[in-house]
C-alpha cells in the first residue's frame, strides 16, 4: 500500500463512521425533526469524505468530476427533502419533542 491508499482508507473509514452516526441518530433521536438533523448533516459529511477518499484513488479528472457531481446531487436533494419532510410534519401537526 502506498501513502495514497492509506489516505483514502482513512477518509473512507471516517466517512463510514459519519454514516454510522447518521443511522444511530435516526434510531436514537426522539422525533422526526431531530432525526432529520442527524440524517442530512451526518450523511452529507460522510458522503463528502467518501468522495474525497475515492477521488484520491481516481485515475482521471472525469472520475473526480463525476464523484463531485454525485455529492452535489445528494447534497441538494438531501437538504430539499429534509425541508419538505419537516414542513410536511409541522403542517400535519406532528409535535416536537422537548426535554
Amino acid at each position, binding site marked *: 500500500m502506498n501513502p495514497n491508499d492509506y489516505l483514502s482508507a482513512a477518509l473512507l473509514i471516517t466517512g463510514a463512521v459519519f454514516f454510522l452516526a447518521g443511522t444511530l441518530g435516526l434510531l436514537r433521536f426522539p422525533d422526526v425533526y431531530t432525526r432529520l438533523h442527524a440524517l442530512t448533516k451526518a450523511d452529507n459529511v460522510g458522503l463528502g469524505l467518501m468522495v474525497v477518499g475515492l477521488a484520491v484513488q481516481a485515475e482521471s479528472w472525469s472520475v473526480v468530476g463525476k464523484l463531485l457531481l454525485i455529492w452535489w446531487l445528494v447534497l*441538494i436533494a438531501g437538504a*430539499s427533502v429534509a425541508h419538505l419532510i419537516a414542513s410536511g410534519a409541522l403542517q400535519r401537526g406532528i409535535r416536537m419533542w422537548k426535554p
Partner: protein
Amino acid sequence: MTLLTWIFDSLLGLSLLWLAWRALACPNLFKAIVLFVAFGLLMALAWVRLAAPDVALAEAAIGAGLTGALLMAALAKLHPTEAHNDFAVPPEKNVTKVWSWQWLPAITILLVTTGLGYVVLSLPPYATGLSTEVAANLEISGASNPVTAVLLNFRGYDTLLEIVVLLLALLGVWSLNSADLDHKAAPGIVLDTLARLLTPIFILVAAYLLWVGAHAPGGAFQAGAVLGAAGVLLLLAGWRPRTGLMALPLRLVLVIGPAIFVIVAMLTLLIAGQMLEYPPTQAGALILILETAATVSIGVTLAALFLGGDPRKNNRNKNHT
C-alpha cells in the same frame, strides 16, 4: 467464493426476503410502499452482485423509483383525506383474511416452492447459455455492450414489442381516467426550485446513459427512466404542461419511438429480407437513432403514466360537473 462475500450475499438475500415479507404483511399501506421501495433498492444491489449493472440501473430507476412513485400517488388518491392529514394512513381493513382454510395456500405454496428450489438446484452448475453466440457476433452488432447488442440488434423485435406494450398501457390508463391538469398541490417553492434546477441535469444524464449504452452499462431504458423521473419530479412540484402541448405534440413524442422502430423494421425487411437485421457498417448509427427515439418516447410515456389519465379529457369533464 470467499467467506466474506458469502456472508454478504447471504445477508443481502435474507434482507430481501425479510423486506418483501414486511412489505406484504405490515398493516399500514404507506409503510408497505416505503418498504417496497427499500426492497427495490436492495434488488439493485443484488443485480450488481450478479454482475448485471444494466439491470441494476433499470431496477433503481424504474423498479424502485417510478413504481414507488406510482404506488404512492395511487395511495394518495385512494385515501385523499387521511394522506393529507397524517403521514400514517389508517390500517387497511382485513389485512390478513381469516380464512378457515388459510393453511391450504400456505402448504400448497410451500410444496411448490420446494419443488422449484429442487429444480433450480438440480440445474448444471456451469452453463454458458447464449453468451458465446453473443460474444461471437458482438463485432458486427454495432454495440460493444453485449446487453445493448441483444436489446437493439439480436432481439430487436422484443424491444419493439415492449415499447408498444408501454404505449398500450398508457392508452389503457387514458381510456380509464382523465388527468387533473388544474389541481396543483402547491407543495412549496423549495420543491419547485429543486425540480427546475435538476431537470437540465437529468437531461444531460439521460443523454449520457444513451450514449454510454453502446459500450458500457446504460441504454435507452435507463435513459428513458431518467427522463421520466424528471417529468415525475416536475409534475410533483405542481408543474403542468400547457394545454396546447397536450394535443398533437404529446402524441407525436409518444409514438416517435415505436414509429421509428417500425420504419427501420420495414426497411430492413425490404432491403435485407430479414426484420431488424442491420447491415454491419450502419448498425452503430441505426442503433443510436433507434435508441434516441425510444428514449424520448419511454421517458414521456413513463411521466404520462404518472400523470395517470388522458390530459385532453380534462376540460370536457369539468364542463359536465
